[in-house]
């Protein structure tokens, strides 16, 4: 087990380092940086340009810029935003609070909706109910999340004359406002993930119900609730735990668009606006953070697999 953890950690560190390097190089490989944006159209002032480049350290060799950033990052210092002067770690912290709340609520809703639907479809495989649930899954997986969000907004206004408040409210400031702001984003993201769950769990359930121990359980007259809810569910839970990780990473990607649509001050919006402003420290810091989350989630999945299934540990 320790060997597995060590190998996975090493691979994760290499992936994180390479992705940080890629982001760093990509941003500097294309023309246009913060200096160009600050000077705008009157960008003929060579002295000002040179002075600003020196100020931001953009005139230094690339390997020094990257080495410096990496060294500080390893010490937990991501620098400060070039526009706002705020610490990048503080900005990420604030934004991640919003994204995390959105992601966890989406995870909760989609699990509560998707898993039972998938089990039901699997148990009643081949029935009309199964066909309906599969159709729902297909639609949910195919609808663009932001479009679902737009349509929900139109529907809410048309049917109830209700639209969410515009300004963001944290859950500790005003819980009612906070929840009504998050209602539509959570439904639009949750629908997609519930569909993914339903499809995945149905497949697991169908395979599980064909196994001998289930036939034995039914043959010896156990009530259906015990057969499905205990015997089948127990084996479905293992792959399902790992699927939760996959869903979380997907939600992390989905929030970028949904945050932009509903004006939520989360990580996605932070990355988008920093990219537009060429705010290098913020882009690098926030992307590294996202990559580290994705890597951590995948690492936990791998380790859980090793924990559940000893055969994986040696490989």
């Amino acid at each position: 087990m320790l060997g597995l953890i060590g190998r996975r950690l090493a691979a994760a560190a290499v992936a994180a380092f390479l992705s940080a390097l890629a982001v760093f190089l990509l941003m500097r490989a294309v023309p246009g940086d913060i200096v160009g944006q600050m000077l705008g159209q009157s960008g003929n002032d060579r002295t000002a340009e040179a002075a600003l480049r020196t100020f931001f350290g953009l005139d230094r060799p690339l390997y020094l810029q990257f080495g410096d950033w990496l060294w500080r990052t390893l010490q937990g210092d991501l620098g400060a935003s070039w526009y706002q002067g705020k610490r990048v770690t503080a900005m990420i912290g604030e934004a991640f609070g919003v994204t995390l709340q959105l992601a966890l609520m989406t995870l909760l809703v989609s699990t509560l909706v998707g898993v039972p639907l998938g089990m039901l479809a699997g148990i009643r495989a081949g029935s009309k109910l199964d066909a309906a649930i599969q159709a729902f899954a297909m639609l949910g997986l195919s609808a663009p999340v932001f479009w679902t969000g737009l349509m929900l907004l139109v529907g809410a206004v048309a049917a109830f004359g209700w639209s969410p408040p515009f300004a963001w409210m944290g859950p500790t400031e005003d819980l009612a406002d906070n929840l009504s702001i998050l209602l539509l984003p959570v439904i639009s993201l949750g629908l997609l993930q519930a569909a993914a769950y339903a499809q995945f769990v149905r497949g697991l359930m169908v395979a599980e119900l064909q196994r001998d121990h289930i036939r034995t359980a039914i043959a010896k007259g156990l009530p259906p609730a015990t057969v499905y809810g205990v015997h089948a569910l127990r084996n479905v839970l293992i792959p399902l735990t790992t699927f939760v990780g996959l869903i979380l990473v997907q939600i992390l990607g989905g929030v970028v668009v949904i945050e932009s649509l509903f004006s939520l001050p989360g990580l996605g919006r932070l990355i988008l606006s920093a990219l537009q402003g060429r705010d290098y420290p913020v882009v690098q810091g926030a992307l590294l953070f996202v990559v580290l989350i994705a890597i951590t989630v995948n690492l936990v999945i791998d380790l859980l697999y090793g924990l559940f299934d000893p055969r994986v540990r040696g490989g």
Partner: protein
Amino acid sequence: MSFPLFRRITPGLAFGLALIAAFAVMVAVPGLIAHQSPIAIEPSRALQPPSSAHWFGTDDVGRDVFSRVIFGARVTLGLVAGSLLIAALLGGGLGLAAGYAGGITDLAAGRLADMVLTFPPVIAGVVITGVLGPGAANLVLALSVVYLPTFFRIARSGAIAEAARPYVEAARASGSTEFAILRRHIFPNVLPLVVLQYVILFPLALQIEAALGFLGLGVAPPTPDWGAILEQGKNFILVAWWLSLWPGLFLLASAVAVGILGRALQSGPGGM
């Protein structure tokens, strides 16, 4: 790839194939379906709701939304299909070579693929188009880069599995060159995996293409692209819902159509 591709044509599959045929017509000859210009501006008829003259209504500068959506099929579906093709050719080719050759090439390519895969796909797309700027070329680049590693992995694992088969050993013993083995034995067995992956990834890539268009990172206006029309419609969502409803429905329908095809291929009898 062996035939028949499908175990049987269910009503669902027939529906999916019919949808694909309809979209193919839209992509090939949009002018046959929509007779008005998708880009002609006419401010006097801005934001009109759907009518017999404009089935899907008009947008904020008076363009016919029906025409924009129909002509948008070629842009949106074409960009996704082309990007995935590039990813499949490059990623599949590299994977084939890396899996068969092994060694340091395999290791280096594998690390690069891991690196791209650490980013959630939407975020990778946003970063690439956000840095390089909007435009069709950058969009294609972003989508290809995002999906290249997936094709690489599929082709690589397929090549490794095939290379270990006894018949490859037999071919080598009977004097076949490595290139001949790769071309005659490995490639035909890996191709179906790559084709299936293409179909499976299509709806996902479509979502990302639309999302990037929606964020203003896709093709430049006034080119009709479904994601871009949605981006434009977002600002008028409460006064002109028709601007957003239709392009989204077409995105949904095309993703469903390819999704049905993908599912049928996965459960097909030909080992696909």
